[in-house]
């Protein structure tokens, strides 16, 4: 229950900073650029192929604040052929990177599980770097009903 006093405080805050809740007009472009840049920062100029990686997460997300994500990479995990790193990106977050894990042949199986915040309906991408330097990815389209961090507007 919002009291009159709380309402006045919130209203004053909203009046004091009216611009913050508004998104820039080119927000879609900014997001896309940030997303592409984040991936480029990780893979450089190398091509990213699909396959080998399996990104497992619910296609319909009730609560974007804690979305269970499991990334499994097919690899024998030997000294000569293993997964060096696993990265996770989301398309619509203010900062696209979620987690970057470094592993090696001692992992035995290249499986990473965590929980992510996802701001809005869009793509989620997992990218794995193999020991020979090649990159493989998997992407999943998710629908988010309750967003993480949306109260502030995205970006």
């Amino acid at each position, binding site marked *: 229950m919002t009291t009159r006093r709380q309402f006045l405080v919130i209203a004053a805050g909203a009046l004091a900073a009216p611009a913050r809740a508004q998104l820039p007009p080119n927000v879609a472009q900014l997001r896309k650029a940030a997303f592409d840049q984040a991936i480029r920062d990780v893979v450089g100029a190398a091509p990213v192929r699909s396959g080998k990686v399996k990104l497992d997460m619910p296609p319909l997300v009730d609560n974007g604040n*804690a979305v269970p994500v499991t990334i499994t990479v097919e690899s024998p995990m030997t000294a000569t052929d293993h997964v060096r790193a696993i990265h996770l990106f989301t398309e619509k*977050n203010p900062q696209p990177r979620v*987690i970057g*894990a470094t592993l090696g042949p001692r992992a035995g199986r290249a*499986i*990473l*599980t*965590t929980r*992510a*915040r996802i701001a809005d309906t869009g793509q989620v991408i997992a990218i794995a770097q193999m020991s020979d330097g090649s990159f493989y990815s998997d992407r999943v389209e998710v629908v988010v009903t309750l967003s993480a961090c949306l109260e502030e507007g995205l970006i």
Partner: protein
Amino acid sequence: MARVVVSVPPSAKKGEVIEIRTLASHPMETGFRHTTTGELIPRDIITTLVCTYNGAEIFRAALHPAVSANPLVTFNTVATESGTLEFKWTGDNGYSVTASAPISVV
């Protein structure tokens, strides 16, 4: 504050792949939220998690604000020898917590 939980099987066969689960109690404040009066809440997150097995690093993760509050990270490793797994979380505002778990390999 600063409570962490790790789950490591107490014993394993040599060469067996074991699952390690880690959970840290932390708000993972993104730095994008505001209070009701419009002040920005500063970022306060865990940035790295490192796991060592008898001193050798086997896993490292870089966490970003998009990891949920109370970050759960699960990964695997091969049980090679008896000893200790050590975990270290570090983050903003000098956050640093360690935990360890023994494992006996037969």
